[in-house]
């Protein structure tokens, strides 16, 4: 069973770059997520929002890929917001410690409002 590649749109909202990630997040997401992050960081943003699909299937392989992206954002001193997660994956992200390196917001609008006022 093959996973369809993720579609990732990159949007600019003032000084925030938003990656709108469609599809499931698994080990197969590594090339598309890394490529989107590489494009997103070209303009030197200090704030990035990762928006997921609420119905997405996310497994440990996807969590590992996401943590590797977070490692890059940490080295580049970027603040990360995460939106679009179901209640279950909010709990899972908290359990594995992703919330130590990224803030989960209830909605994309909440993330944009909160992060636009950050220095």
């Amino acid at each position, binding site marked *: *069973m*093959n*996973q369809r590649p993720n579609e990732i749109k990159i949007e600019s909202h003032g000084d925030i770059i938003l990656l709108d990630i469609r599809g499931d997040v*698994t*080990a197969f997401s590594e090339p598309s997520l890394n490529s989107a992050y590489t494009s997103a960081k070209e303009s030197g943003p200090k704030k990035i929002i990762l928006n997921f699909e609420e119905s997405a*299937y996310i*497994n*440990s*392989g996807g*969590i*590992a890929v996401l*943590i*590797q992206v*977070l*490692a890059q954002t*940490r080295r580049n001193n970027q603040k990360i917001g995460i939106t679009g997660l*179901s*209640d*279950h994956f909010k709990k*899972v992200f908290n*359990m*594995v*410690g*992703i919330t*130590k*390196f990224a803030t989960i917001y209830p909605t994309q609008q909440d993330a944009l409002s909160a992060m636009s006022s950050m220095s």
Partner: protein
Amino acid sequence: MPDDQTVELNLPSKIGYERIAIGGVAEFAKSVGFSPPRIEDLKTSVAEACINAVQHGNKGKPDARVLLAITFKENTLFISVFDEGGGFKAELKDPNIERIIDNLDPPVGFGVFLMKRLMDEVEFNKRSNHLHEVRMTMKLTG
């Protein structure tokens, strides 16, 4: 022969087929009264057990299979995931995200970590040199 309360699934040992397993387990759990949040916990746990069976148990052998047995008795859901490997030698330590972010540890170990936290009990049973079982249980409460 399994009893008339047990459902069995026999899957190819390939990443992706865990979605068939979680669909079956979710329907079974719903039919016996588990709540949507507990079913989400089950889906993640079963997916991770199947992924481990493919990657670490069957080690990518193309003709190996992953077998699941699901049953409900005494208000408890029992799920066994079998692979054709020899099992774990020692308890895996929990992943440390700080060390992973700092590139000191590889980004592994999240599957077992999540299974242990999302299920009521998880056991790793070496049945033989070529049969390993991950047995997970979840009680129906409330």
